[in-house]
């Protein structure tokens, strides 16, 4: 298991990186934390001619409040998110989700943008970004655009990133006061690709009614499942109830389209979709109503 030969560049600015991507197009692959790409290289399942290593671009690693959102640079290490006071204050759901990504040793290198761009449908960060209604900012040498998760995630390991383009940041709207969130996933072993997981965000009004709901699932299809519409329809405007939570879980369960693999048949994943949805919503309700 040795990586194939490749040409290597480690630009120190975003513009340089984008120039390289423009120049090499499809032949180039971006190396961020490498926790997904390098195994593919080692197995020779990926054989890029050019690797553009963005680890020297210091400008891409940041966590900042901008325009009512928490913006996270693509190169921000997962471990940094886990430890960030800004994240735990403004987007605790992301912090909770990140803690379930791999292990400390992979989070020390693995990046937020790398996980998103890899688009593994079991990725925790993707589910959290989906639940919170985040936006993904892409740049190329000539243009910049911002996509919703629905636009960004195309299918298993496929995103809307075009050759020459790069994911430079993700922006997570900071939900208002009264918001409670919870991340829940089920995996056989800690650090595994989860069998299913759910990220839930609920905003409670002063009267205890749910005003806004976000829900993102992982592992239950070929890309993150956005359950916000279901959760909003069944939860918003009411005080939280077991029956409503159960109704969301059931609706999610019947709406997802899970895949089978050697770890789990599709029907079990479908069942788990309901379980993790309920657990995540219950967790958020508990946190949101415990004062």
């Amino acid at each position, binding site marked *: *298991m*040795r990586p194939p030969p490749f040409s290597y560049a480690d630009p120190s600015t975003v513009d340089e990186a984008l120039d390289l991507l423009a120049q090499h197009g499809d032949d180039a692959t971006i190396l961020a934390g490498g926790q997904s790409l390098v195994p593919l290289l080692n197995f020779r399942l990926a054989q890029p001619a050019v690797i553009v290593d963005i680890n020297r671009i210091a400008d891409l690693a940041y966590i900042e409040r901008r325009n009512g959102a928490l913006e996270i640079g693509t190169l921000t290490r997962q471990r940094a998110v886990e430890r960030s006071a800004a994240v735990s204050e403004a987007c605790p759901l992301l912090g909770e989700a990140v803690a379930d990504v791999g292990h400390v040793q992979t989070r020390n290198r693995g990046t937020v943008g790398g996980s998103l761009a890899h688009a593994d449908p079991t990725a925790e960060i993707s589910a959290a970004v989906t639940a919170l209604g985040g936006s993904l900012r892409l740049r190329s040498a000539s243009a910049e655009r911002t996509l919703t998760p629905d636009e960004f995630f195309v299918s298993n390991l496929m995103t809307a990133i075009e050759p020459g383009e790069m994911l430079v940041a993700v922006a997570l709207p900071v939900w208002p006061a009264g918001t409670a969130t919870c991340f829940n996933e089920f995996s056989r072993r800690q650090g595994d690709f989860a069998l299913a997981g759910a990220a839930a965000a609920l905003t409670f009004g002063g009267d205890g009614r749910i005003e806004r709901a976000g829900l993102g699932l992982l592992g239950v299809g070929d890309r993150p499942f956005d359950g916000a519409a279901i959760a909003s329809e069944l939860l918003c405007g009411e005080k939280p109830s077991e029956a409503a939570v159960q109704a969301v879980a059931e609706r999610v369960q019947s709406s997802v389209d899970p895949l089978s693999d050697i770890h789990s048949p599709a029907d079990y994943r479908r069942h788990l979709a309901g379980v993790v949805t309920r657990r995540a919503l219950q967790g958020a309700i508990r946190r949101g109503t415990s004062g």
Partner: protein
Amino acid sequence: MGATMIGERVKRLEDPRLLTGEGGFVDDIQLPNTLHAAFLRSPHGNARIRGIDLSAARAAPGVVDAFSLSDGWPDAPPTIPVLAPVDGLLPCPQYLLARDQVRYVGEAVAVIVAESRDLAEDAMELAEVDYEPLPAIATMESGMASGAEVLHDTVPDNVAVRWTQGIGDVAEAFDGAAHVVSDTFRMQRYTGVPMEGRGTLATQDPVNGELTVWTSGQWPHTQRALTAALLGLEEKSIRVIQPEVGGGFGVKVELYPEDVLIPFAALRVGRPVKWIEDRREHMLTVVHAREMDIDLSVALEADGTIRGMRCRLLSDQGGYFRTLGTVNPSLAITSVPGPYRIENYEGEVVCVLTNKSPSSPYRGAGGPEAVFARERLFDMAAREIGMDPAAFREKNILPADAMPYDTGLVSVESTVVFDSGDFPAGLQRALDAIDYAGFRAEQARDREQGRLRGLGICVYTQMASVGPYESAEVRVDGGGKVAVVSGAAPQGQGTGTALAQVVADQLEVPLDQITVTFADTARIPFGVGTYASRNAVMAGSATLVASERVRDKAIAVAAHLLEASEADVEWHEGTARLKGVAEKSHTLAELAQAAGPGGNRPEGMEPGLEIRHYFETLDAPFAFGVHIAEVEVEPETGDVDIKRYVAFSDCGRLINPMIVEGQIVGGIAQGVGGALLEELVYDEDGQMLSANLADYQLPTSLDLPNVEISHEESPSPLNPLGAKGIGEGGAIAGHAVIANAVEDAIAHTGARVRETPLRPAAVWKLMQEAGAASS
């Protein structure tokens, strides 16, 4: 000091070098000018080879050599021999490289030798093999079906061998039974997966022509003999050295094609050649184990007394019969009755060929499979006749006064005779340790609250060592330092420490005066190796006898120097002294000097304070144990959490309880892994879907319990140490006990556990199906 070193929890002598990164594993040996090999491997489960073209690979940068079987052996290529044959075995051996057909994904087709592994792998992409894919046989069932693709012309129905064996009158036992309980159990394919894969480095000495082979193995002397035979060389022209080995668990007790091909390549190119197996190669090509389908029946009296048993066992052997292919089914079929009084038993073995990596022993070697089926069936039988599973076992377990107990069964490795032990007392101790009665009361109460708690019991015996011999040499140098050399070939068990304790016990010298080395054919001419839990018994006994004789010889030298009779000389803290006259004494160093060539020793005495001993026996001791596990199953996910785990063991005399307990817990980890997680999965085309460590799931620190251990020490009468092996007991019991506990947790739903691994999806399905059936 005195005779106290045996039984002490001595810190291991091996550890400082391993803890500081100084341990020398095979890939840590870096010879100048080394070339690196990569293997071109079959991407097909079953395919005919129409042609191999290595010309582009040979021309690639850095490539020094590339060869296929016909390049290496234009005439009559050798095949890997079967070392433990049984009557009727049809020939289906493997060539060192595929000849005209590949029969499993990963089978080696050609070797590429280059200046670096990177370049060898680059060149591999240029090699061209013209395959004609054939239908693959992915299951034993499909292999035995009429009209199935035939994998070897010599084996027309894909059954390489079948045999039956038994004792008593089984027909009568079943005819007269009050109850007959039967079921079919399936244990999945899983295997050792040591953290260090295989690896070999070979080089030829330019001066004397000797071929030196460093290999990550378990039986260097056998490897030397087989390598010599396959390459047409003399044994004395090959030196096999096993350096530090990063785990083996049985899968390195094998003669792999690569073991022979790397030395062969080194001879071809005249430079050192190294090959380090990568993880993908490991999963695809290491010998696999377990995978048996077992039909088992038990005939009972009305009170639960066992009248007899019947077993039919299908063993998936993969694409070829390799060196030890018969061992798993043979040990399984003879392990079915186990520690119970079963006087009528009949077993049938059917060995089926499929398009998978060949099968061979892995920790437990047939024991886990047989014990899983038996202990599962006994729980089902007890449930069916309304008896408590512990009481069922108490009724049928062999009493202490039955020892020694000859089961009348013989495996390819030994007769099955239980040499010592009090089995009922052990069962009681384990039941007490878990508070069996208390648990049952809590279980019923918790079930009403929706909590699914279960308790599993597994009672087992284990063949605890195997002959025919092991070697040890104990030598004292002129400085009084003791060097031990053994033909044993451990992989991290701490055997060096145990042997040093045996020597320290006899010679009464501090452990830091003793060094132990293993597994080098140039240091000791004969040796067998490390497998079948044999080190303590075989190498331990050889070391004990050798060190006793060294002490006797030292006393004889002392008597000569002191001008006294041997009877008047006593051994005291590493010195020989005249009884009652402390100042009339000689140190071990003085005695070694006197005993040396040219020294002042008794007339007629062979020079040198050194003894080499071969402990020879064909009698295998049997260890006994009872494991009890408590689990909780999460109702809505099927997730299994191990709450408590009690392990009672009787492995005879303990040399180092700390090491023994490490073996017990380590074995349990592998049994639990098999019960809950691990599986080598092939699809219908013979492609492996678990050829990496994300998909082949080894247990992590969060998946395993803290084991509560207790021991009894019933010395074995079969060796001077009184020892029995323990290396495999945990792997044998750990699998069955978890399966039993899981069923116990969900049995009230009607669910029955017949196969493993019990991943959450599988447990959930069992509950769903049972629930659907009952509603």
